């Protein structure tokens, strides 16, 4: 059963899945909040925030990785503070890989959610408010369910990005077997060695299968969510 993969490959697969899932899970609420802020609230510095969010997309991943390393490394200002205060270490740990993946996927997620958010009919929200629901409850019961297609699309983009990310990750948390050596990094490493092609191809196939599974699941969810949002019978 487990034979088709070597332990090292299993390790990379598991790590990739773990990193991608955590990064999606952790960044999702933040992405929803950010999208909401950017779409609905007119605060000063909005375009700066918007720009910052898109940075990981614009910059070569290596640059993002270096920035992470400088800020979140054990000697970095934020990394040092996190370690002193909460004992959280990101540099050269899988948690750092989660941070890198989350950051790289963040603009994709925020964009998708914003698109859905812009499509929401504000008349439904005002109807809910006349029925006694405050802003927060309206958001949870009316807006959020209608955001589902965007959230699912954002999550799958971010998950795929999390699986595929390596530039920022390898720069930030390096390529440490069992800790930060995700599928992508492993594939990259194998490509760097003269004899690694076969292994690289194997791992590539695994990465593709993993992402396809997530993709198909998300498509089903998204279709159901979109039918619901349109008020169609289930």
């Amino acid at each position, binding site marked *: 059963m487990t034979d088709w993969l070597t332990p090292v490959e299993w390790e990379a697969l598991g790590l990739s899945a773990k990193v991608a899932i955590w990064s999606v899970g952790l960044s999702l609420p933040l992405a929803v909040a950010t999208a909401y802020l950017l779409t609905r609230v007119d605060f000063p510095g909005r375009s700066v925030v918007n720009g910052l969010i898109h940075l990981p997309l614009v910059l070569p991943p290596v640059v993002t990785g270096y920035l992470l390393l400088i800020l979140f490394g054990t000697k970095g200002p934020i990394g040092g503070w996190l370690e002193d205060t909460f004992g959280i270490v990101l540099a050269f740990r899988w948690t750092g890989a989660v941070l890198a993946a989350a950051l790289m996927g963040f603009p994709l997620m925020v964009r998708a959610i914003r698109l859905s958010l812009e499509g929401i009919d504000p*008349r439904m929200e005002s109807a*809910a*408010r*006349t*029925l*006694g*629901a405050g802003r927060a409850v309206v958001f949870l*019961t009316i807006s959020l369910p209608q955001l589902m297609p965007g959230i699912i699309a954002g999550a799958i983009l971010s998950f795929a990005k999390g699986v595929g990310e390596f530039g920022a990750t390898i720069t930030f948390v390096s390529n440490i077997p069992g800790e930060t050596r995700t599928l992508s990094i492993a594939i990259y490493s194998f490509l760097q060695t003269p004899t690694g092609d076969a292994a690289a191809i194997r791992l590539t196939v695994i990465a593709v299968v993993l992402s396809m599974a997530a993709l198909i699941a998300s498509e089903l969810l998204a279709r159901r969510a979109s039918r619901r949002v349109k*008020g169609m*019978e289930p």
Partner: protein
Amino acid sequence: MSDAVRPTPVEIPMPLEIDVEKRLGPRFALSVRFEAPGGVTALFGRSGAGKSSLVEMIAGLMRPDRGRIAVGGRPLFDSRAGIDLPPEKRRVGYVFQDARLFPHMTVRRNLLYGQWAGGRRQGAMTLEAVCRLLDIETLLDRRPGALSGGETQRVAIGRALLSDPALLLMDEPLASLDAPRKAEILPFLERLVHETGLPVVYVSHAMEEVIRLADTMALIDDGALAAVGPVEALTGRIDLPLLTGQGEAGAVVGARVVAHDADYALTTLEIEGGGRLQVALLSLAPGTDLRVRLRARDITLSLAPPEAASTLNVLPATVREMARADGAFVHVLVDAGAPLWARVTRLSADRLALSPGKRVHAIVKAGAIDRASLGGRTSRVPGK
């Protein structure tokens, strides 16, 4: 008009104060100020007059540029005092002109949203009662997407009713319903309103509904208030053809149930001034006060009382005033104890030599007074 027939303002628990100004577009501004003594206030006016906008301001979904909105003395909005309650704090039940059902929830969820998410109490009505009234039991587990126009509207009414409102805002709630359905829902609304004293703002283009439900009527014309007053007074004004097109003008008179004739299924009413009318049997106890609308076009004037005719209601009267209505017709105001309008051709008026002071008989067919012309009015629950 006697106090028994029209409750005095003192008895009316929830007066409505409206005083708003709002610019909506380059061409349209709304500026309306009136007070209504509570009960049902009808907003009447042509398409685009600003009725829905006014209702949205009461609900807190549109912010007036300035002004004050209060219900039962409780200010919902007051630009001077800096009060602007958010919609969820206003406790209104709003039936939108465009329904606005939540597409992602089942009909049941939609109906219970106010209780489930809005923190509203169960209120006067149960889900079962509302479903029965609106005949939507079979829709409960469906989603709004494929409901028919009328089904959608009924669910929207149910949702507002189930949110335990302190003020009901209804924007053409019955517009796309069939007559039999309206005939079921109207008496219910009537009862609801009169039993609970719930103030209602009601937008409608259908005169029957307004007559039937409304106590006060506000006529909106191009963003401004054209007239406001008790329904009786406004529907009696034949200078407001805006109201009704034509042919719908008439008098609304207070009346009291006097007796029932079970054999012939007739009820005898005594109208103000003591005249008696026989109408189809009403399930109202003798002594109940109500409002009867006598349309000018349904009243015949005769010099002699008719003989051997199928009309039961003949009221001796005196011509008070002749008002020209349109080409062929003249509206004649007669005093039959209560003031009544009759619409007769000029030819007949000349033939009968009608003029103020002339004694005539006003003939009203029993069949012309149907349920749609009867505004129910039972003793109100004071306070609440």
